[in-house]
């Protein structure tokens, strides 16, 4: 019984915001990787442009 009370206590201590969505962390990391790909490839060709100028 005290265990359950502890659980309630913990829940009240850390209010869950509506739409506090850890459910899309994998999505976020995936798009960040995509963004990194864009950045790295762009910078690569940019460097080539500068070197050849």
């Amino acid at each position: 019984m005290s265990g359950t009370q502890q659980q309630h206590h913990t829940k009240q201590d850390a209010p869950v915001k509506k739409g506090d969505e850890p459910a899309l962390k994998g999505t976020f990391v995936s798009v960040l990787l995509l963004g990194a790909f864009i950045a790295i490839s762009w910078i690569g060709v940019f460097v080539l442009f500068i070197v050849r100028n």
Partner: protein
Amino acid sequence: MKSFDRQDGKLVLAHILFAFGALLLGGIAGMMQGMVRGGASILPDFIGYYELLTAHGVLMALIFTTYFIVGFLYSGVSHTLGGKLLPAARKLGWAGYILMSVGTIIGVAVILAGQATVLYTFYAPMKASPWFYIALALVVIGSWLSGFGMFYQYRQWRKANTGKLSPLFAYMSVVTMLLWQIATIGVAVEVVVQLIPWSFGWVDTVNVVLSRTLFWYFGHPLVYFWLLPAYLCWYVVIPKIIGGRIFSDALARLSFMLFLLFSIPVGFHHQLMEPGISSFWKFLQVVLTFMVIIPSLMTAFSMFATFELFGRSKGAKGLFGWVKVLPWKDVRFFAPFMGMLIFIPAGAGGIINASNQMNAVVHNTLWVTGHFHLTVATSVALTFFGIVYWLIPVVTGRVLTPRMNRLGIIQTLIWCVGMFIMSGSMHTVGLLGSPRRTAYTTYDDHPDAVLWMPYHVAMAVGGVILFIGVVLIISNVIGLLRAPKGETEYPIGEVSESADHTPKYLERWGLWIGIAVALILFAYTIPLIDIIRNSVNAPGVRTW
């Protein structure tokens, strides 16, 4: 489950089969080009490299794509807007098909007869036979009729369902054909007003810069005409195929609206290296081009979110647990998914291409060819191939057998391997300076050009593998047509319960078309006036 309307099924199938016929012919040409450039002189006397290249471009980038798109969109419009096309819509669909097909046959004949060796961009003042330009005009006007049929069906549905949100498939189809309608005005003016009279000899000269500007006003949104139907499949169909939900109807519609606005006033990013357009207007259209990247960034998020939420609903844990539960063995998912994955390097390359002065590194090199073989020939093509495995069963009253599914997976893998080798080599050798649209040469054994040869050989190898892929998809299409009879449901996704409601303003067509037109006028009016006033016309030349 109500089965797909038989008459509509004939219309859809006619388009799909014509598309694959074009793919086969275009694929033969492509493979031969690759081999020639790789050093194998295999061409018979009656055909040259550039005739093949012209045929390849027209058949793949204009005919395969347009026919598949019109057929696919008609299928969804029929299914979601009442289950059956209205007689007027179906008649317009057939009228469009006939006109486009007459144009295609004339065009291909003229090309193979060596009277239009001008490549699929037909840049003036190279002057082809007038029948080539007439053929193009017929294809474009035919496609307008196809679009009108869809608009009509949509408008009638809206009248009968006032206040209701239109089905997502239909909404996206309307945006796609609207984009096409606005975009093709440019190439229609170029062909009908400038090139046909000039090719007949009724006028002596042509304003070259104007013709190029009108073409690329069309040429950039053309690629979004290809991309949007693939995105439609990813947004609307894939969630159903995997057993998940559409992440957000509102954001899906918003992304399509943003494509309508920003795909068109950006043609100058294909003209960055040419004279006659000021640096200011080039950069302005580069800025607008970068805006059109945003709906793709949104789409990437939506796709991953759809997969992750599906995975979590199946109990997957951790950052990437959802990857394991996706239906990898289902070709209806796997092929479009590979299209999505490959869009990452494809899109990254596109951003580089559009980067103003940086375009000098890649302009007219094989890098560009590598780029569009990733975008249209992989992301879009693999998605279209994936669609076929349910679309043909749906419209013919048959089923997808496990054997056909397996053959589909194999075909997808072969395509990816071939494309990795071919496009990978193209990107690399392009950065080293090897030009696109060029037959076999070593420029008198110049050391730079000799260095390119191993890559050209790799391209030929990739091209042969891809041709095997072409033969396999044709064989699979035939297999699907002969599959056992049965019921196949048209896969239309349902929206996730946690998704936001869709605001009505996304369907206020007058508003959005108005903004699109305003942006086009903003991006093009002053440079066009300058081009018309200050250019010097050139006479036609036949250099082949």
